[in-house]
């Protein structure tokens, strides 16, 4: 029988106290988060007054393929002598608690996990991590907030409602530690581009450190180079939707259990038509990507693709992991996904050495150039609880350690673990072992992180291809104009209303509803919250403009 965590003594008084607390909450319906009442203090004017941290690129590691403000740095191999960039242990000796989601399997606990133990040793403070799966995390987070049980470092889910009020009530304002040149004390936080810090500003202050993604999450059609080559197609570059559809038909082969697409690429067609990346702003007026007239054309085009049979017929019931299997197994040739997924496909490749992936550019719908969407800037922000028994400086030093970039010894350790146990060196490239994969997945990347580097161990071609497509699309990237502007309605309702529209979209492209029904769905979206979001975003933008 496993050893059980100790049970605290329950007195009659504590038991009754618990019952009364629950009764109070049940009757009043008010969770005991009294300090989190919405104060309305999150004015964009105040937010704009914040001087964001001054960006200072870390010069200790020179990439093989240079970065720009949009294109990520590329490395053909891991530097032979990684720089040890931080000499002092950032921790203060006391345990630091962290609440986070984790994307994979549960790693072994600290007592049985040499990587976790090594992290504790290097931090100089034991790290206790409370984890939940991606799906369960928002519920766990909400319950712990309501119960007043925030850990020292909190991974804040992007969909959290009343976020400014929560941050103001429960978390440290980091402005005086990070604003402007003050960030220079933490060189790897200063190495995070200024754009990412916009998403950390609430209530007129900086309330967290960013976990940046941006370009690495930009999603375009990934394709199997090896499967196209077998059909005699090299470096496909369709110049319009019509050519793109022809390409799909050419590689489609249902008789051999192979389809062009894992799912209907509606968002790709939207990018061909120049539809907004989430929200577009012109002259202070915001327009949702859903309400633009060109959606009807995008839906009709995608419906034609489904009708032509170039999309796997199980696409509408399959989850993402099934679609990844189709791509890896050659059941599908194209998948609309990001640079992160590109690497993951190499991680899970079962097709042998010939397996190769590349990405399509976006043509204009009728010719010319399309407008690719920049990926969401942040994965999450991490805030520091006021209840933490550590100084803000200590917690920032820990975040700084977590943000040491590619090429440093700290990054090598954080992502790959201990040489010999968690990875083996092939040349200078670290190749993870199975143990390494399981033991290193403790969620450190959600405390803080450096920008992604374009790199795949042992395959310099991957970084070259990724860098090349990023250079091609960078000048045409379309940004989400709502980024950095807070809308309460959006945080409450956007995910729910978008899911309804996605359902309508799926029915339309399957031919179960006419394309014209999209207009009614959008009307409903606007009346149930979309208009309110538009108003709030416009107000936030106007406040910003006045500064």
């Amino acid at each position, binding site marked *: *029988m*496993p050893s*059980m*965590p*100790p*049970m*605290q003594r*329950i007195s009659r008084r*504590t038991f009754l*106290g*618990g019952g009364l*607390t*629950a009764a109070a*909450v*049940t009757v009043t319906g008010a969770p005991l988060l009294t300090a989190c009442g919405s104060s309305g203090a999150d004015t964009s004017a105040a937010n704009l007054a914040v001087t964001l941290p001054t960006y200072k690129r870390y010069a200790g590691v020179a990439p093989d393929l240079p970065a720009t403000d949009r294109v990520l740095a590329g490395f053909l191999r891991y530097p032979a002598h990684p720089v040890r960039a931080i000499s002092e242990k950032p921790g203060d000796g006391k345990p630091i608690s962290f609440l986070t989601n984790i*994307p*994979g*399997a*549960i*790693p*072994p*606990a600290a007592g*049985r*996990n040499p990587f976790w133990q090594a992290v504790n040793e290097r931090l100089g403070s034991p790290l206790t991590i*409370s984890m939940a*799966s991606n*799906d369960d995390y928002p519920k*766990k987070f909400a*319950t712990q907030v*309501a*119960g007043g049980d925030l850990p020292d470092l909190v991974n804040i889910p992007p969909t959290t409602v009343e976020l400014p009020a929560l941050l103001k009530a429960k978390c440290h304002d980091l402005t005086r530690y990070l604003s402007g040149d003050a960030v220079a004390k933490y060189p790897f936080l200063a190495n995070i581009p200024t754009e990412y810090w916009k998403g950390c500003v609430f209530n007129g202050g900086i309330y967290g450190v960013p976990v940046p993604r941006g370009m690495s999450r930009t999603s375009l059609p990934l394709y199997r180079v090896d499967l196209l080559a077998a059909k005699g197609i090299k470096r496909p570059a369709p110049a319009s939707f019509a050519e793109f559809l022809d390409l799909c038909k050419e590689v489609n082969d249902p008789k051999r259990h192979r389809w062009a697409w894992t799912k209907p690429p509606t968002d790709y067609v939207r990018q061909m038509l120049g539809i907004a990346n989430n929200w577009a702003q012109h002259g202070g007026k915001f327009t949702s990507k859903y309400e633009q007239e060109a959606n009807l054309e995008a839906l009709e085009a995608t419906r034609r693709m489904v009708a032509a049979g170039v999309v796997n017929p*199980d696409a509408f019931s*399959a989850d*993402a*992991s*099934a679609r*990844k*299997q189709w791509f*890896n*197994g*050659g*059941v599908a040739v194209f998948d609309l996904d990001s640079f*992160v997924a590109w*690497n*993951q*496909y*190499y*991680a*899970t490749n*079962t097709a042998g050495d010939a397996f190769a992936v590349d990405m399509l550019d976006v043509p204009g719908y009728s010719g010319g150039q399309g407008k690719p969407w920049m990926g969401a800037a942040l*994965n999450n922000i991490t805030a520091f609880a006021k209840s933490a028994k550590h100084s803000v400086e200590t917690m920032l030093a820990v975040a700084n350690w977590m943000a040491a970039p590619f090429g440093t010894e700290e990054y090598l350790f954080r992502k790959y673990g201990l040489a010999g146990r968690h990875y083996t060196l092939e040349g200078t490239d670290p*190749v*993870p072992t*199975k143990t*390494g*994969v*399981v033991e290193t*997945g403790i969620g450190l990347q959600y405390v803080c*992180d450096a920008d*992604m580097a374009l790199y795949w161990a042992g395959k310099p071609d991957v970084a070259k291809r990724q860098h090349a497509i990023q250079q091609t699309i960078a000048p045409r990237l379309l940004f989400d104009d709502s980024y950095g502007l807070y809308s309460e309605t959006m945080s409450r309702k956007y995910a729910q209303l978008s899911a309804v529209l996605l359902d309508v979209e799926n029915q339309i492209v399957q031919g179960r509803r006419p394309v014209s029904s999209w207009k009614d769905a959008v009307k409903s979206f606007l009346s149930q919250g979309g208009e309110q979001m538009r108003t709030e975003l416009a107000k936030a933008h106007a406040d910003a403009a006045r500064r």
Partner: protein
Amino acid sequence: MSRRRDAPSWPMRAFKGLVLLVFCALVVLPFVGVVSTSVAPDRQINEAGGLVLLPDSVHLDAYRSLFAGGVVTRALGISVFVTVVGTFASLTVSALLAYALSRPHFSARRPLLLVVLFSMLFSPGMIPLYLVVKQVGLLDSVWALIVPTMVSGFNVIVLRSFFAGLPGEIIESARIDGAGELRIFGSIVLPLSRAVLSVIGLFYAVGYWNAFFNAMLYLNDSTAWPLQLVLRTYVVNDTQLGSADLGTEQLPPQAAIQMAILVVSIVPILLVYPFLQRHFTKGVLTGAVKG
């Protein structure tokens, strides 16, 4: 003549057999698919698009991955502990409560019954329950998986109905022979109630075995997580196993892992059924026909 009328013709028998065969296949084939996919080679799973009915060869990589690192093994131990101890505790408390509620001379019977019925009609909700668990000091304790769900109002009512239907003469005669209430309960009532206790025990056991949500809320330390919650992170997380944002190396495909998880989580509770099957019909009918 009458024999010919009673016995169905062979086409009818064949038809019935076919219908039963189809239903059996509908039940058995998904399970076969689950087991086959869990042991199928990764290339075959990818080529089949996720589900394999007949594996080309048998590979146990998924099970090895699952049990590597000791996380699943430990979680299995915790689940067994919670299920065994929880079921025993629930049965004890529920049977005692139900027996008290079934005794006509018990003065607090009516208000207590109302409390039980109230708990069936109104749920406290997630956050109040969390606050109770926190206030009584059960957070991060494995007992948080047992104590808050120890008594089910429905099961108490079923047990009470059964106890109330026991012949009063037997209990009276035991009392005349000098037996106290506990003696009557232990020596007379419980032995007569094996069928209903088996079924209610099964309900509780399945409930404890399948529970994951309370563990997710109440246990921050993942070393105390039960099997279902650990397995849920493999199945529900829509990402490849073990891949952090930068991706890592080749692993058994997600489908094989997911199916191995299903096998691991189904088999233990499946093994309990044959031992309780003979009590099942009688026990289930108890609540249905007696008020």
